[in-house]
C-alpha cells in the first residue's frame, strides 16, 4: 500500500509539473540536432597548394589526381608560390614535387597540424591519392593494403554520435531526475512526514524509481528513434534486446541519482553533483569521444566504473555491429551490478536516515 501510494504520488508530481516534462523531452532532441549538424567528422574540403618543380607528365598526373577528387581543392597559384599560399593559411597542406620526381618518385608533404586530428586525416587522404598515381612512376608497392571499414561503411559521423549521445543524455537525465526527488522533500519539509509514516525505506526508493523509469525509458526511445529516422543510424541487432538494455541503463542512472539524493541536503547540491558526476566523465571517459585504450592507466581504471562505458558497448553492438546478446554479456552484467549496488547503498543509507 505504501509502495503503491508513493508510485502514484510521484506520477502525479510528474504530470503536475508539465513544464519540466516538456523540457525533458525537448532538450534531448535539441542536443541531437546540435550534435548532428555541428559534429561532422568527415573532412569535406581539403585545400592543398602545390609547388611543381618537375613539371613532367608524371607530376601533372599526380596533381590531376587531387583535382579529380571530391575531397580536395587545389588552390590556383594566382602568381603566388604554393609555399606562400600555405603560409597564408589558404591551404591546409603543401605538396612540393621536386625536380627529380620522375626519377625518384618522392614528394615532400607539409600539413598544417594546428588541428592534429584533422592533420592525420589529411595525411591519410593525400597518401591515398599519391599512392594511387604512384603506378606511373614505375615503382610498384610490394604490399597493398585495402582497408574495409566495418559497421560504418561510409564513416558517417551520425553512427558514431547517436549511440554516444544516447548514453550521455540518458545518464544525465536519469541521475538528475531522481537526485532531485528526495532532496526536494527534504527542502519542503514533507520528508518529516514520510519519516514519521510507517513506510519502509525500500518502498520510498522503489516508489520513486518506478515512475521515472517509465519516463526515462520513453525519453530513451525517443532519442534512439530520432537517431534512426533523422540520421539514418541502423539497428542491426535485436530491437527488443536494445529496448531491454535501455531500461536497464535507465535503472542504473536512476539508482545513481537516488544515491546522490541520500547524500545531498539541497536540490542545488544534488543538481550539481549529478551533473558533474555524469556529464564530464561520460563525455571523456566512457569511450564516447576518446579511445579508452589510448588513455593512461589511471584514466583507464576510472573509465571502468563509468556505467556509460558499458552501455556504449551494448548500444554500439546492437545498433551498428549486430551483436548477439551473448557477445555483450559482460557489459550487461556490469550494468546489472551497478544498479544493484547503487540501489542497495541508497536503501541502506535511507533506512539509516529514516531511523535517526
Amino acid at each position: 500500500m505504501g509502495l503503491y501510494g508513493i508510485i502514484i504520488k510521484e506520477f502525479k508530481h510528474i504530470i503536475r509539473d508539465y513544464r519540466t516534462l516538456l523540457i525533458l523531452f525537448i532538450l534531448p532532441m535539441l542536443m541531437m540536432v546540435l550534435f548532428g549538424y555541428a559534429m561532422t567528422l568527415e573532412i569535406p574540403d581539403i585545400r592543398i597548394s602545390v609547388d611543381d618543380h618537375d613539371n613532367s607528365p608524371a607530376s601533372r598526373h599526380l596533381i590531376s589526381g587531387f583535382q579529380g577528387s571530391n575531397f580536395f581543392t587545389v588552390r590556383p597559384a594566382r602568381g603566388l608560390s604554393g609555399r606562400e599560399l600555405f603560409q597564408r593559411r589558404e591551404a591546409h597542406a603543401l605538396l612540393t614535387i621536386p625536380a627529380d620526381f620522375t626519377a625518384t618518385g618522392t614528394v615532400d608533404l607539409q600539413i598544417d597540424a594546428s588541428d592534429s586530428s584533422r592533420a592525420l586525416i589529411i595525411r591519410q587522404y593525400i597518401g591515398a591519392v599519391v599512392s594511387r598515381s604512384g603506378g606511373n612512376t614505375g615503382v610498384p608497392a610490394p604490399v597493398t593494403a585495402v582497408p574495409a571499414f566495418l559497421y560504418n561503411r561510409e564513416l558517417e559521423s551520425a553512427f558514431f554520435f547517436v549511440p554516444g549521445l544516447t548514453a550521455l543524455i540518458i545518464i544525465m537525465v536519469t541521475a538528475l531526475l531522481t537526485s532531485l526527488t528526495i532532496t526536494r522533500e527534504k527542502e519542503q519539509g514533507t520528508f518529516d512526514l514520510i519519516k514519521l509514516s510507517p513506510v519502509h525505506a525500500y518502498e520510498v526508493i522503489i516508489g520513486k524509481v518506478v515512475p521515472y523509469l517509465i519516463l526515462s525509458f520513453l525519453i530513451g526511445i525517443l532519442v534512439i528513434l530520432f537517431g534512426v529516422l533523422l540520421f539514418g543510424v541502423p539497428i542491426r541487432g535485436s530491437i527488443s534486446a536494445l529496448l531491454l538494455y535501455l531500461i536497464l541503463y535507465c535503472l542504473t542512472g536512476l539508482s545513481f541519482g537516488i544515491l546522490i539524493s541520500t547524500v545531498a541536503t539541497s536540490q542545488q547540491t544534488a543538481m550539481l553533483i549529478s551533473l558533474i558526476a555524469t556529464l564530464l566523465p561520460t563525455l571523456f571517459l566512457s569511450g564516447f569521444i576518446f579511445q579508452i585504450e589510448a588513455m593512461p592507466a589511471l584514466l583507464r581504471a576510472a573509465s571502468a566504473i563509468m556505467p556509460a562505458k558499458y552501455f556504449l558497448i551494448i548500444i554500439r553492438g546492437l545498433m551498428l555491429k549486430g551483436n548477439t546478446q551473448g557477445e555483450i554479456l559482460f557489459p550487461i552484467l556490469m550494468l546489472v551490478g551497478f544498479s544493484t549496488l547503487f540501489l542497495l547503498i541508497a536503501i541502506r543509507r535511507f533506512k539509516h536516515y529514516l531511523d535517526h
Partner: protein
Amino acid sequence: MISVQGLSRRFGTFTAVDNISFDVAAGEVFGFLGANGAGKTTAIRMMCGLLSPSDGDVLIDGISVSAKPEEVKRRIGYMSQKFSLYGDLTPEQNIEFFGAVYSVPLKRIKAEKRRVRTELGDEASTAAAERLPLGFKQRLGLTCALLHQPPIVFLDEPTSGVDPLGRREFWEDIYDLSSAGGTVLVTTHFMDEAEYCHRIAIMSQGRLIDLDTPEAIKTKYDSDTLNNAFIQAVVRDRAPEAEGV
C-alpha cells in the same frame, strides 16, 4: 499516554533541551509554552521520533520511541507550523497519498475527501494545495496528520500566522479531537490558545520551569492574565543569569 523521562538534547556544547520530564494523560490538551529558542520544537521532535535524544526517553503508550520507532509511528500524528504537504498536489491528492502510506481504509479516505471538498469548495480542492489560504493549509495539514486516527497528536505551533477566525476553527478541531478521547500536545505563542489547554508547561532555556493548569499558573505568578504570568515566569527564570553578568 505520553511519558517524557529526563529528555535532553545537546548540539555540540549547546543544550537545547535540558533534562525535562512530565506525563500527559489520555484525552488531555497539553500546552507547551516558551519564548523563541526555548527548545519547544526540539523537544516535540524528539517526542515523535524525528530527532534522537542525547539522554532520556519518551514513552508513547508505554512504548519507547527510541527503541521501537516503528510501533510508535501508527499511534502518533504530527504537524508543524511549516506547511509540509505537497504543495504541487491538490488537497485531495494529498489526502490520497497519506491515506495510502498509512493504509487507511478507502472508505475513510473518500469520506475525508468529501469533507474537505465541502469545506473548501470544488475549485480549491482540485487546485494546487500551495495556493490555499494559510488557515486552510494548516487545517488540511491537520486532516492529513489525523487520517490514520492516531490516539496522540503533536502540533508544533500549528496556528502561527493564521488569522483569529482560522485559529478558532483550528482549535475547534483540536477540541473535537480531545473530546473523542485523543491526546493533544500543542506548542503555541498565543496566550488565548494556552487558556484552552487543560494543563500548560512553560519552557525557558531548554528547561521546564513550570507545569500546571492555566488557572494555577496565573495564581502562582499573581497575575490576572496568562500573558503576564508567562512573562513573569520567563523573566524570573532568566534573572539569576542577568545578575551573574
